[in-house]
């Protein structure tokens, strides 16, 4: 059984003039110790997907349907009280901006001890010892000193290390990291990603990494989901998707990267931009920007088809697979 299994998740935002569907029919699973990447552009729904796992979507957002099974229990149906026992304890989160997640008026030590005591019945002294141990794990120089420092006394990279240390405090099963390095410089990003990857491997923690950076996904994760306009359009092993993306959107996203182009030549570009949630087109949400779009694409959302180990929601890919099958049959 998978550690976390999300089935047909729908998330909506109740706004004036009707509901906006932020997530539609999201299904994926995460195994113990697995590292999964969620990729997509802003507004694709990757953060909503991550937040909804711990039911952290703020009103007017709500989970409209589907299940979120964590060790067989449905998080979507749990009471706030029960959920609180899981949040930060079994499933931890790391957010984008470390300055926003740390309380500026409390020392690092106070915040860490507080988080431990919220879940464990131990003495303050023991809690402090755990906090110190985690700070050592994230390789912060002079960790004893850091416990008594305030967040503003640390640099951005150091703060993000503290955040990772806090995520690790209670030996979680899953860490959900929402763009953990986007606010950081590239050399610091490399260090933080390296650290996160090593810790997840050592402690056998599953990681759900939300990012828009395909390079980071490629370096860190084993499987990835590509999201577009609230749907998963492609999911499978990271290497397979990066090397041979099936969905036209994923292909476009990869080809638009400057490192894919000939230096100085025009970059490949996907025309237009992602539709706003207010007017998602019928059928495949990508059809208005897609070079392969046909009448069929405008009618209904395509079902997932399997190509290799990758699941893709695209009629064009489905047709290609169908053709290939027919050709093989004709040959034999």
């Amino acid at each position, binding site marked *: 059984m998978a550690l976390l299994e999300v089935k047909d998740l729908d998330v909506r935002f109740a706004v004036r003039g009707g509901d906006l569907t932020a997530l539609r029919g999201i299904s994926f699973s995460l195994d113990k110790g697995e590292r999964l990447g969620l990729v997509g552009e802003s507004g694709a729904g990757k953060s909503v997907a991550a937040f909804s796992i711990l039911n952290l979507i703020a009103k007017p957002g709500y989970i409209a349907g589907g299940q979120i099974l964590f060790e067989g229990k449905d998080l979507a149906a749990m009471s706030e009280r029960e959920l609180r026992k899981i949040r930060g304890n079994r499933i931890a989160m790391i957010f984008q901006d470390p300055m926003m997640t740390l309380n500026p008026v409390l020392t690092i030590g106070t915040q860490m001890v507080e988080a431990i005591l919220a879940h464990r019945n131990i003495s303050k002294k023991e809690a402090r010892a755990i906090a110190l141990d985690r700070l050592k794990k994230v390789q912060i120089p002079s960790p004893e000193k850091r416990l008594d420092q305030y967040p503003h006394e640390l640099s951005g990279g150091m703060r993000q290390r503290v955040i990772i240390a806090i995520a690790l405090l209670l030996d979680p099963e899953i860490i959900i990291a929402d763009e953990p390095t986007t606010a950081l410089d590239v*050399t610091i990003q490399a260090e933080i990603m390296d650290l996160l990857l090593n810790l997840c491997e050592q402690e056998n923690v599953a990681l759900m990494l939300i990012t828009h950076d395909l390079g980071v996904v490629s370096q860190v994760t084993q499987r990835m989901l590509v999201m577009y306009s609230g749907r998963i359009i492609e999911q499978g092993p990271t290497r397979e998707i990066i090397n041979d993306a099936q969905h036209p959107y994923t292909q476009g996203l990869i080809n638009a990267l400057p490192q894919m182009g000939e230096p100085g030549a025009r*970059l490949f570009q996907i025309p237009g931009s992602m539709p706003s949630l207010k007017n998602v087109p019928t059928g495949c949400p990508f059809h208005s920007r897609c070079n392969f779009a046909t009448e069929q694409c405008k009618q209904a959302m395509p079902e997932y088809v399997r190509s290799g180990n990758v699941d893709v929601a695209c009629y064009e890919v489905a047709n290609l697979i169908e053709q290939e099958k027919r050709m093989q049959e004709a040959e034999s």
Partner: protein
Amino acid sequence: MTSPLVSIRGLEKRFDLSGSLLEQITFEGGRFRRKQEAVHAINGVDLEVQKGEALCVVGESGCGKSTVARTVMGLISPSAGEIHYDGQRIDNLDGKAALPYRRKMQMIFQNPYASLNPRMTIQQTLEEPIRFHHPDWSQTQVRDKIHEVMHSVGIDPDWGSRFGHEFSGGQRQRIAIARALAVDPEFIVADEPISALDVSIQAQVLNLLMDAQESRGLTYLFITHDLAVVEHFGTRVAVMYLGRVCELADTRNLFAAPRHPYTQALLSAIPKLEDDRPNHIRLKGEVPTPVNLPSGCVFHGRCPYANERCRQEVPQLIATDGGTQVACHAVEEGRL
């Protein structure tokens, strides 16, 4: 070699932190002392931008790259050093004398959500610079010009009566580019013009900037932290660290054979699609604060090759065999 379009000579910029005189005075050990502190944002930068090229300035936050851009544009005045445009010194000109240069030099900012006036329609936004620089133009001339630039950035001229908030981030950045192009500039300073945009939109805007360069013969000073973009876009690259240029090279040379240890670390830190794991050169510690600059080479505290000379003496940019200019004692001495 032809004379450069823009040359930056010995540029320095300090931002005073100590406040007013009264705030500077402290009482220590029985006597009053005056304490002054400043952020040393730029510490002696010499750069030349040749006509028709795209000179990229890269570096991490706090290295002074945006300060260079703003000083060149005259948005902030330098503490020391000179800016020359087409042979004429421009950093000491007064408002009226600087006017022709304001038209020739335009800027594109990072955040198109902040750089467009929310209370102005696109028409007004584009009209303002044209009317300011060409007060003698007729209504028709102005309108034709607006149509021309809107067309060239791929925004439908019929949308002129809309406001900035009605557009997506990518479209807003196109409008910001249109505004810069509206007065037919020769030189454009672009400060992180695509970092606020999504990947697929980044490609669109980069293509647009390249098309404009080709069709209008523009010269760019392109500020960015994204090295992958530099490799694609830049003719030459200047790598900055703590307010100094540590390496200046042709883009191809820089990516093929980075010489400065900092450049090497920076390049290795870019996550690449073909990587299965992060593999980067680890640097010791973090970027020191620009308030108290390290002595000697600003990079020595984190450099694996640093020796006594690096701690004492500030390295100057020297040309190497490949044409790359590097400010590093280790490279000069052949240790690296």
